[in-house]
């Protein structure tokens, strides 16, 4: 039998992390918000952040209590397994962002799509060649040619031209 989310320690852990984070920000807010302006407190920049952080903290109290006194709760996400494949694709996505700076849009898109398609099991030769090529061409035409979006010069090219 799968436990309800309310009996999940994983859910309570996330709630508690949010609550503790909010508490830390609440304490540090006078230093993280510039309050040197002439406005009284009720017109100033600190009031609303304090309310919002207070809301997070208030909402996290039940999670904090349940985390400390778990009762019959156990570690449980949603019963659909560990997010291994999603984590791998996510790492690729982060590398893709770095790749935009180092290698540029075209190479990064081609490599990301080829690797990500392999990771998600869409690894027939046709898909791994055609899809990256097609998407790269479409993105380049739309963003670079039609919309005229500026992309930084790839570091690799700068390295060789200097």
């Amino acid at each position: 039998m799968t436990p309800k989310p309310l009996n999940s320690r994983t859910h309570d852990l996330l709630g508690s992390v949010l609550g503790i984070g909010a508490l830390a920000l609440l304490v540090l807010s006078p230093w993280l918000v510039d309050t040197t302006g002439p406005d009284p407190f009720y017109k100033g920049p600190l009031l609303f952040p304090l309310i919002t952080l207070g809301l997070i903290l208030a909402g996290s109290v039940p999670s904090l209590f349940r985390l400390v006194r778990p009762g019959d709760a156990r570690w449980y996400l949603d019963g659909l397994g560990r997010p291994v494949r999603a984590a791998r694709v996510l790492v690729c996505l982060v590398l893709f962002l770095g790749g935009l700076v180092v290698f540029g849009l075209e190479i990064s898109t081609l490599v990301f799509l080829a690797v990500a398609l392999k990771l998600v099991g869409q690894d027939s030769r046709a898909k791994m060649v055609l899809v990256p090529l097609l998407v790269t061409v479409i993105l380049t035409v739309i963003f670079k040619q039609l919309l005229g979006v500026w992309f930084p010069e790839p570091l690799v090219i700068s390295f060789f031209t200097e």
Partner: protein
Amino acid sequence: MFEHMMDGFYAAFSLANLVSLVFGSFVGVVVGILPGLGPMVGMVVLLPFTFSFPPDIALSLLLGVFCGGYFGGAIPAVLLRTPGVPSSIVTSFDGYPLTQKGQAQAALSAALLGSFGGGVISVLILMFLAPVLAHVAASFGPPEYFTVAFFGVVLVVMAFRSQLGRGIMLLGLGFWFSTVGIDGTTLSERYVFGTLAMQNGLDIVPICLGLFGIGQTLILVEQNIMKTDHVHLSRSTLDFSQLWQALRYWKTLIRSGVIGTFVGLLPGTGSILASFLSYDTAKRLSPEKERFGHGTPEGCIASEAGNNAVPAGAMIPLLTLGIPGDALSAVLLGVFTINGIYPGPLLLVKEPVLISTLYFSMLLINVAAFAMLIIWLRPFAMIVKVPGRLLAVVIMVVSMVGIYAVNTRLFDAGVAVAMGVLGYVLLRMGWPVVTLVMGVVLGEIMENRLRQTLSLGEGSLMILFQRPICVVLLVLTVLTIAVPLIRDTRNARKNARLPA
């Protein structure tokens, strides 16, 4: 008035607007058909492209995705019992049994006629009701706006009252995200942690795109949502004779469209409730009650008319009060504000042509989506065979490049990835992500209204109790919180007393 309506009519029929709304409807139908994506993903992926468009074109494009998504959602619900959008699950109650009996055409005709009728009825109600509500709201000052926004967020949070703590936490987190960066009123830095990139704040676009675009596609990568790809349709277009037969249920169609519009009008209620309520009402009032659940076109009409009436219903509080009813209309609010247009009662006075264009565009979107599905029913139905994981990976890269293109800042793309992780975790855990989006969108509005209210009251909120509209809204807010909680407590006690 008539002149503005005519200007809006002509603007809606301009080539650019027609292309925009037809393309938007097409994308909407496609993402609606694909289980696991839905109109939200379609809207946030297209969002970065809209910044180079005039507001009417941008809104037509996104409204096309919004409404088209509900049209498309019915197809897999009827053919595969897999709803393309969550609210279409109700359509599958009668649609799938009809498909099993070899009457898929009858089910699809009823569902699409329901979607079309519900959409048109709700736009007509929007055209009538929005000016009335705007007239009432014209006398609103900052305290009234603040209490309306407060009432709206309370409604949304209470809609998820089984997860009250989580809803409050996410709402607070959304509000907090809206405070990061340089405060527009005092020009003070807030939570920038000494970085230049954070001074611009956390933009709503990367947040929404991350939470829904990246978060949802990461889920699609992880879970193979489609259970079958076995699609069988006797002909490639919709059978017109079945459409005429479905028109027998015109009373159900009108009633469900009205129910859906008024459900959509209330923040936080959503299209699932609209579908259920319309279906349940149709079942109770039908002379053929016993056929419900075993395959009747009337059930398909009721649920689809109900859920397709929600987009126009949600536009009523958005246009007249600036309060989005759900996450999808929150994204639309973002488009308005990015273009320097602030929805509220004055919007109908200041931008009458834009509003008229929107009305006619919404009518045209319903016609476009309906026509597309009638003509290309089988090709659209075959979309369910496209591997979800392949699409997910492509959507991710398009989202990343799109989000970079908005401000040519890699920081925004980084924010989208971070929000994608948060969205993935929250969506998998089933937390109410919509409250987070509402917080982000309404944060700045609520903060400004709160400051103005406090300035009027010289630091005191007692001013709220001196204004009749505020008092009424505050009483409604208290009742919205108290009544369901008392009822839940009573039910829990009653259940506890029952023998096991």
